[in-house]
């Protein structure tokens, strides 16, 4: 259970001006819930994830996970960044094992577990390769394996598929859902793709910019397991339509008026 209570974050920029990245965000995320965050660029999605991860202190408000206030990074959280951020000097296997190394949790079975995750991500045979020998999509999959190796209860993903082509993206979305089904966890997933947001989520959090606020939270009433055929369903269309309206609302109305 993640509880975000009237959270605000203000950055002081170099010239002394204040940037209100997040204002008065409140959200409760149930255990094993899949939440996606969508919103225009700069509306504070990454900042929100960083705050939940304990990498940034909030300016006001509070976050608690399982009843405990977040005051710094927690080891039961896995983070996937927008870029793969693999260690260039380590093999894929060592990259996946890296969090265990940092937390001194390497055991006999760790390598087996890493190999299993790597196989799950379709990277078998690449264990001993270096990141630069892999494509961008493969690197991102390795980064997801790395986040999963500690079996975190919470997974924070900041546009993890942002750098991927549409095909790999769809494949990876389904893959992620499969992993989530096998190892249930709470996921906060930032994306720029509205279809992706709806396909993955139990609930879609739509954010509006300047200052970053929650415009609305949309329930996705689609059955699981999800697949791309559901895109044709009217519930799916309703959701995407509603999200578009929230994000582009003003602009749509303006263009309508011109027409």
């Amino acid at each position, binding site marked *: 259970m993640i509880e975000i209570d009237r959270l605000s974050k203000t950055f002081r920029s170099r010239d002394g001006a204040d940037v209100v990245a997040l204002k008065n965000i409140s959200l409760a995320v149930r255990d094993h819930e899949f939440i996606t965050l969508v919103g225009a660029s700069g509306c504070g999605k990454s900042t929100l994830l960083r705050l939940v991860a304990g990498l940034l202190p909030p300016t006001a408000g509070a976050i608690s996970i399982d009843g405990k206030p977040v005051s710094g*990074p927690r080891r039961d959280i896995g983070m996937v960044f927008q870029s793969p951020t693999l260690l260039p000097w380590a093999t894929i296997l060592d990259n996946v094992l890296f969090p265990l190394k940092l937390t001194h949790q390497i055991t006999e079975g760790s390598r087996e577990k890493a190999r299993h995750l790597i196989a799950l991500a379709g990277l078998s045979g690449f264990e001993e390769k270096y990141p630069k*020998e892999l494509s961008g999509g493969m690197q991102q999959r390795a980064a997801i394996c790395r986040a999963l190796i500690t079996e975190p209860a919470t997974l924070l993903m900041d546009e993890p598929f942002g750098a991927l082509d549409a095909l790999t993206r769809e494949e990876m979305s389904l893959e992620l859902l499969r992993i989530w089904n096998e190892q249930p966890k709470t996921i906060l997933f930032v994306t720029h793709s509205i279809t992706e947001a709806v396909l993955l989520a139990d609930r879609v959090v739509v954010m509006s910019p300047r200052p970053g606020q929650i415009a609305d939270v949309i329930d996705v009433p689609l059955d699981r397991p999800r697949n791309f055929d559901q895109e044709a369903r009217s519930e799916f269309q309703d959701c995407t339509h509603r999200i578009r309206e929230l994000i582009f609302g003003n602009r749509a109305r303006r263009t309508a008026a011109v027409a």
Partner: protein
Amino acid sequence: MATAREERQRSLSLRRFVLSSRDVLLPAAVLVLLVVMWEGSVHLFDIKPFILPAPSAIWTATTEIWSTVMGHTMATLNTVLIGFLVSIAVSLPLAVLITSSPYVSTAVYPLLVLTQSIPKVALAPILVIALGANELPRIVVTFLVAFFPLVISMAAGLLSVPSDLIELGRSYRASRFQELYRIRLPYAVPFIFSGLKVAIALAVVGAVVGEFVAADRGLGYLITSSTAFFKTPLAFGAMILLSLMGIVLFQIVVVIERVFFPWSSGQETVVV
């Protein structure tokens, strides 16, 4: 499938071999040609050996007293290596210190630049008086010449770590030491090696400067002492040995990087 890949691998390595032999043979041929022209013109124009000795004269003068020359070479090599190792031992912690906080860097940086702006040739005789006429002032000069580019490149490497990688470490509550040891230092390895390559070349220069000022051994001493008696061929021999030493040491650094840090040198990506 495997055979196709092996086939590709083989043709690739063959191509690389042809390329590298072309890369070696062509400059070697040019070098030989130049030496032949040099030898020819010295004889043709009857140039005095103390002004410009012929390659053959250099060869004779140097091999005549080969064991003495070797002794001088070893003495210089000794100074170079000790100075180089000291500069590594000093600059690594210094770079870590500088990059650890902006305060330290503001405090130390001007001092570093100051040490760098002192002409080492001017400093050498002063050091001899202070430290005595022994190996020490030469090592200190070598160190002073070599360590600055090392500190700068190490600090640059430690600071150039992408913030995402640092955040990755922080998100697993890595300690400052872990962050340094597991993320910053490995990330800085390519930078460190580019610094080491500059430093080893400068260390040779530093050692010779030290020997020019005060020494009774070493290739720098051999040059000053032989030119004093117009034994130019021997001085040329010493100079050539110095360049060879520089090249060999540089290549050793390159090989160490390639063997121990293959991901750093990035050789695999260079396929013409």
